[in-house]
């Protein structure tokens, strides 16, 4: 039931993106990529914090289920992070003329990729289940410590061409109302999709054990 609803929701969003969203000045119809890119990037960051949150839970309670959740969130996070990086690079090629130029946003998403990669490699290299849970939880927390520093340091280093985020500093929405609603629907659909995948994988893992 949920899956059918989600399928309808996603197809509705896709339809809306291709038929209702107007072309934007300067970007034209390229703006359509944003309706894929923003939700996916949002989920990549969300999954990172969820993974860190479950690591805290694991260290507090020592229940292995939290470790599994943390691992699944990180693996899905890596997938969404890759999608966000690729869609962002395509957008960059079409509008700025190069796939990659170390724009601040590209740097931060790249670091997120590195952290996800390091976390999963670390997990793969430890045999004992409890030891793996403990050590990877510590690493997840340690890496989440860098986030506030990155938010502070990266924008000082490079000039950014990235379009202003939806919730920008001025707190002003520079978006057509239709676009905003479609974007919110897309973010919602993507988050629910992530959650469905997450529940499904965790459930399967639980059952196989």
């Amino acid at each position, binding site marked *: 039931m949920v899956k059918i609803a989600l399928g309808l929701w996603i197809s509705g969003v896709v339809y809306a993106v291709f038929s209702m969203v107007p072309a934007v000045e300067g970007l034209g119809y390229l703006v359509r990529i944003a309706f894929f890119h923003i939700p996916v990037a949002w989920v990549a960051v969300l999954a990172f914090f969820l993974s860190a949150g479950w690591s805290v839970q694991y260290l507090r309670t020592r229940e292995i289920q939290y470790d599994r959740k943390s691992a699944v969130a990180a693996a899905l996070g890596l997938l969404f992070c890759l999608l966000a990086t690729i869609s962002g690079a395509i957008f960059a090629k079409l509008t700025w003329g190069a796939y990659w130029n170390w724009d601040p946003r590209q740097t931060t998403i790249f670091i997120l990729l590195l952290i996800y990669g390091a976390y999963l490699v670390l997990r793969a290299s430890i045999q004992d289940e409890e030891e793996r849970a403990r*050590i990877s939880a510590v690493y997840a927390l340690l890496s989440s410590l*860098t986030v506030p520093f990155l938010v502070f340091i990266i924008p000082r280093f490079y000039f950014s061409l990235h379009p202003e985020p939806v919730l920008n500093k001025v707190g002003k929405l520079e978006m057509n109302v239709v676009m905003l609603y479609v974007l919110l629907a897309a973010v919602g659909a993507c988050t629910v999709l992530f959650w469905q995948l997450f529940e499904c994988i965790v459930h399967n893992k639980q059952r196989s054990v």
Partner: protein
Amino acid sequence: MPTTRLNLLNGLWAVLVKDSLCEFRTCYALSALFMFALISLTSISMSIGVVSLPAQLTAALLWIILFFCAMSGLSRVFVQEQESGSIVVLRIYASGQAVIFGKLLFNVIMLFGLTFFVIPLFTMFLNVDIYRWPMFIMILFLGDIGIAATATITAALVAKTQGKSALFTVLTFPILLPQFLSSIGATTKILADSQPDMSEIMFMAAYNVAIIIASSILFDYIWYD
């Protein structure tokens, strides 16, 4: 079994002395660090000849050399304990905090020694003129502490994995990156003979404090099962 447990400071000192003594006997980590530094510096110098590089490139090279040297030797503090099995004994005698701070101090001293060795070679081989020594030393000091602090906690993590040395770099780099970028930024300014912002120095110091506090808290979860 020990009859009395050492208090934190004595324990820390004991760990530091023990590590220094072991290192002094074998000189393994120290020689690895120094040879690595020498090879990487001279290979750069050989390949570019006598051309002097732009400040930004030189600053990046300096920190890349220091980072990879650190990666070649600093994991030893925990990896060697694990491999020789002495980690069990250490766990009986010393508290977690004494171990992490003792090892951290040892790594900081090693890295200071390395920097002391690298900087003269660096100025010589790469044709660099430095005018603001106090500020430069300050940046090196903070940057070294950052590398050592991050490396110590990740060394504790990789000690129990397979493929330790490869994983060590992979785990350390993303965590160190904010510090790494700001050290390169500040050093670039020094080499271009201008004053780095005070906020940059403050940022590096704040980062060090955050990493050290976090590793002190998180280390207990690794140390005590």
